[in-house]
C-alpha cells in the first residue's frame, strides 16, 4: 500500500489532542464517571461539549445534528485542519453505529402514541403525528455523519458509510487507504463517531441482559462494562504513516473511554497520529 495516515483528529472523554489522549490512556487515566442515579450502567464515559460554534459553517445546522454528528464534526475538522488540497476530489469513508433518536424528540412522539402503557397506532396517527419532529428521520439516518462532514468541508469524492459494530471502523479506513492507493481519490478522510450513552442504547443493553438471563446466562452483565462516546478521523494520503491495527491502544481505549462502538476499532489511528509529529510531517 502506498497510502497512510497524514493527520488525525479526535474527540474523546479524556481529551481532544491526539498526543494528550494517548498519554492519558497510557497513564491509565479514564473518562469514566459514576453514572447518574437511575442510569442502567454504573459508569459512563461522556465527552464534555463539544463547542460546535467552532466547527459549524451555519449555526442553524446544529438542530440537525445527532450526538454522533456533534462528535464527528470537531474530530473531522481537526484531521482536516492543515489540508490545503482540493476537497472536491477528497474521498470520505465513515463508520457509524446505530443512530438513536434524540431522547427529548423521541419521547414526545412516544408519549403521544401511548395508551394504557401500550403504543397505539391510532394515537400515532393523530396526536403523535403532530408531535413527531419533522427533522427526526434526518437525525437518525446512518449516513448523516457523512452528509454533515461532506457539507462542512466541501468533500465531493467517492464515499461510503459502514455499519457492522467494531469492525466498521477498520472497514472505513481500509476503504480510504485502498481508494488512495488505487488512485480513485487523491486524499481521503476516514473515521467514525458514535455515542453509546443515550437511553435507547442503554435500553438495548437492558434487553440483551434480560434475554440472556432467560437462557440462564449473564455474559453481558460484566460490572466493568462502561458505555462511552467519541470520534476519530484521519486524513489518508499517499506516503503517510501506516496503521498498526494490532496497536494496544484498542484495549487502552476500552479501559479509558468505554465502548464507543465502531470508534473502538479506530483507536490504532491515534498511534499513527502520534508518530506524525504534527500534521503532514510525513507527507
Amino acid at each position: 500500500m502506498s497510502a497512510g495516515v497524514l493527520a488525525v483528529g479526535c474527540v474523546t472523554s479524556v481529551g481532544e489532542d491526539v498526543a494528550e489522549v494517548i498519554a492519558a490512556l497510557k497513564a491509565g487515566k479514564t473518562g469514566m464517571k459514576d453514572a447518574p442515579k437511575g442510569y442502567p450502567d454504573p459508569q459512563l464515559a461522556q465527552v464534555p461539549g463539544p463547542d460546535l460554534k467552532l466547527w459549524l459553517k451555519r449555526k442553524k445546522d446544529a438542530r440537525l445534528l445527532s450526538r454522533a454528528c456533534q462528535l464527528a464534526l470537531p474530530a473531522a475538522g481537526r484531521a482536516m485542519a492543515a489540508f490545503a488540497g482540493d476537497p472536491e476530489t477528497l474521498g470520505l469513508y465513515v463508520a457509524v453505529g446505530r443512530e438513536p433518536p434524540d431522547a427529548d424528540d423521541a419521547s414526545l412522539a412516544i408519549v403521544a402514541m401511548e395508551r394504557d402503557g401500550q403504543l397505539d397506532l391510532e394515537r400515532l396517527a393523530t396526536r403523535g403525528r403532530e408531535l413527531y419532529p419533522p427533522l427526526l428521520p434526518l437525525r437518525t439516518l446512518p449516513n448523516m455523519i457523512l452528509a454533515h462532514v461532506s457539507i462542512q468541508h466541501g468533500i465531493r469524492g467517492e464515499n461510503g458509510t459502514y455499519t457492522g459494530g467494531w469492525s466498521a471502523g477498520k472497514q472505513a479506513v481500509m476503504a480510504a487507504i485502498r481508494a488512495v492507493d488505487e488512485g480513485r481519490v487523491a486524499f481521503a478522510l476516514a473515521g467514525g463517531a458514535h455515542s453509546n450513552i443515550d437511553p435507547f442504547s442503554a435500553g438495548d443493553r437492558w434487553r440483551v441482559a434480560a434475554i440472556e438471563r432467560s437462557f440462564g446466562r449473564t455474559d453481558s452483565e460484566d460490572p466493568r462494562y462502561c458505555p462511552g462516546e467519541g470520534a476519530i478521523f484521519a486524513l489518508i494520503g499517499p506516503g503517510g504513516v501506516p496503521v498498526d491495527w494490532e496497536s494496544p491502544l484498542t484495549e487502552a481505549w476500552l479501559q479509558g473511554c468505554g465502548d464507543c462502538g465502531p470508534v473502538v476499532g479506530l483507536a490504532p489511528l491515534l498511534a499513527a497520529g502520534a508518530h506524525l509529529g504534527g500534521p503532514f510531517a510525513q507527507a
Partner: protein
Amino acid sequence: MNNEEQGGLSGRRRVVVTGMGMVTPLGLSVEETWAALLRMECGIGPIRRFDPSGFPVAFAAEVALRGEGAELKRELTTWALREAVAGLGAAGLPSGPRVGVCLGSEAARPPLSWMSEPPEAHPSLLADLAPDAPTRQVAEAVGAEGPRSTVSTACTSSSQAIGEAMLRIRRGEVDVMVAGGVDVLSEPLMVIGFSRLGALSTRNHDPEHASRPFDRDRDGFVLGEGAGILILEEEEHARARGAPILAELAGYGCSCNAWRITDSPPDGRGPAQAMFAALADAGLAPEAIGYINAHGTSTQQNDLSESRAIATVFGPNTVPVSSTKGHIGHLVAACGAVEAIFCVLALRDGLLPAGRNLDNVDPECPINPIRGEPLARPIRYALTNAFGFGGSNGSLILGSLQ
C-alpha cells in the same frame, strides 16, 4: 466505443453477474417482476401492513409477503438470495474464504408492540434490527467466509454495496461476492416521519398514479419495500466453473453533493460527477450508454437535479431514460440493486422499460424519456443511478458480454 477499444483497462479482472434474485411490489421473482414491469403494471396500493386510518399517507408499494420490520427484511433477503443461487444452476454458489458479502441496508424498525413486551418474547430481534443483520444472515446462509461489509447510505446503499463488491473482486481479494440490498419502509413511523419531511406523495385518492417520475405534476415519492441480490464473480472464475454469465458489471462511480441534507443541487453537479466517474471507471464514452435507469424518485428536486445531471453528462434529450419507481415505488436501500437487475434484463431482452404516469414531461427536465410502452432497442451498456438523502450518489454501468 467500448472499454476494450478505449484501452487502458487491459489486465484488470472483469466482474460479471452470474445470478440475480429479487422481491418487489410487482412480484416475488426476477421474471415475475420484469414481466409486470413490461406490462406497465403498478405495485402501489393501499397500505395493508397496518391500519393507516388517520395517517397522512395511506398507500405504499408493498410486497406480497407477510411480516413486518426485521422479520420481513430477513424473509425478503432469504427469498431473493434463494432465487439468485437457484439461477446458478449446477454451478451452484461456492463457499469459503474467496466468497464475500456486501449489502446495502438500514437499521430495521422494531414493531410497535416491541417496547411494551418482555425482551424474552423476541430473543433474536435486537441483533436482527442492526443494519448489518442481512449481511450476516446471507454470509451464514451461503458459507461466505470472505469479507463482509454493510453500506448504509440511505437510497444509495445497495448501489454503493454493489460497487464496493465489484472493487473487491477486481483487486483480487475474492472471486465471488453476494451483493445487493434490502429495505422495508411501509411502517407507521416511516410514513409519519417522511410525511413530516414533506417528501411523500399524498395522492391518497389515486395511489396508482402517485409515483410519477419526471412528470410535471409529481408531488413526492412512494415508500416501498423489497430486496435485490446479485451474484458477482470474476469472469474467468465464472467461465471455468460453468456459471451462467448474465452481464458485465463494467463501471462504478460515486460522489457526495456537499450541498444540503435533503436537497440535490439544482444544477445536478454531484450526480453528474458520479456518472462521469462510472464512465471513466468503465473506460466508456457517454455515447456508449444506450439506456439510463434513473433514480427518478418523483420528488420535485431529485428529478430536476438528476435530469440536469444527465443532460450535463450525455447532452440534453439524448439517451433513453426511465425511472421504474413509477411501478414499484422507492425501495430506498434496495433500489440500487433492483434497478441494476432491471438494467441486466434490458440488456438481455433489448427492451427498455418505460416510465409510468409520465403524462406530461416536466419541461424543466431535459431528458429523453421512455413512456407509454417499453422501447425495443438492443443496447450494449446501461447505466443506473441511485442518489440518497444526505447527498451520496452512486452510478453503476452494466454491459452485455458479446
